[in-house]
C-alpha cells in the first residue's frame, strides 16, 4: 500500500518540479510549484509525519504560494516571451545530473548499512513536548528570525525612499 502511494505521490512531485523549472510561463511555474509541494505533503503522510504534512500544506500552500503569486503580479515584464533560460543552461543541466548521479549512487551503495524497511511515526504530543523542552531555544530563535524577516521585508519593500543605495 505504502509503496503504491509512494510511487504515485513521488511521481507527481517530480513531474511537477520538472514543470516548475522548465515552463515558460511563470504563473504556470508557480502553480506547478504548488502541486509539487502538495505532493511533498502527501509523502510526509506516507512517512507517518501527519503534523508536518499539515504544516506544509498550510504554510507553503497557503502563505508562500500566495505571496509568490502576488510578487509575480507586481513584477510583470512585457518581454517574457524571450527564453527564460540562462544561456549556460546546458552546463547547469550537466551539473545537476552529475550531482544526482552522485547522490543516488552513494545512497544505493550505503543502503546495506541500515535495515530500512520498517517505518514508524511520532505522535503529536511527543513532537510538541520535544519542541518545547529540548528544542526550546531554537524555537525562540526561530520566532526572532520570523520577526526580523517581517520587519525587514516591510523596510525593504517600502516604496518611500528611492534615493538611498548607490547604483553604479
Amino acid at each position: 500500500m505504502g509503496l503504491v502511494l509512494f510511487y504515485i505521490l513521488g511521481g507527481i512531485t517530480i513531474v511537477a518540479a520538472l514543470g516548475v523549472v522548465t515552463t515558460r510561463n511563470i504563473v504556470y511555474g508557480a502553480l506547478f510549484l504548488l502541486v509539487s509541494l502538495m505532493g511533498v505533503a502527501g509523502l510526509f503522510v506516507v512517512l507517518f509525519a501527519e503534523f508536518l504534512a499539515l504544516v506544509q500544506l498550510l504554510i507553503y500552500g497557503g502563505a508562500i504560494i500566495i505571496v509568490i503569486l502576488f510578487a509575480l503580479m507586481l513584477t510583470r515584464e512585457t518581454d517574457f516571451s524571450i527564453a527564460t533560460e540562462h544561456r549556460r543552461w546546458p552546463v547547469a543541466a550537466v551539473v545537476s545530473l552529475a550531482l544526482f548521479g552522485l547522490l543516488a549512487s552513494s545512497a544505493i551503495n550505503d543502503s546495506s548499512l541500515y535495515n530500512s524497511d520498517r517505518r514508524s511515526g511520532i505522535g503529536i504530543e511527543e513532537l510538541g513536548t520535544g519542541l518545547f523542552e529540548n528544542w526550546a531555544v531554537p524555537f525562540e530563535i526561530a520566532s526572532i528570525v520570523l520577526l526580523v524577516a517581517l520587519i525587514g521585508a516591510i523596510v525593504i519593500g517600502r516604496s518611500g525612499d528611492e534615493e538611498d543605495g548607490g547604483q553604479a
Partner: protein
Amino acid sequence: MSLELVDFQILAAALFCLGLYGVLARRSAVMVLMAVELMLNAVNINLIAFSAFRPVSSMITGQVIVIFVITVAAAEVGLALAVIMRLYRRRGTVNVDEIDLMKG
C-alpha cells in the same frame, strides 16, 4: 518488495537536483526563488525519511528540524520577495542576467 529508505533518498536527490537546475538556469529572479523552495523541500523529505526509518529515540530530531526549515524558508521567501520588488522598481526588470553590479 517494500518501501525502503533508499527510495526516499533517491527521490529527495532528484528533487534537489531539479531545484539546483532551476537555480542555475532560470532567468527570472522569482523562478529562482521557486527553485530554491524545491531544494528546501527535498531536504525536508530526506530528514523526515530518516526520522521515520530509524527507530531510535532521536527520531524526533528530524521532524523538529523540518519545522525549523519550513519556518526559515517562509521568512526567507518574504524577505527575498521584498528585495525582488525593490529591484523591480529600480531596474524595471527581475532578469538576473541584467543585475550585474558586481561585474568586473
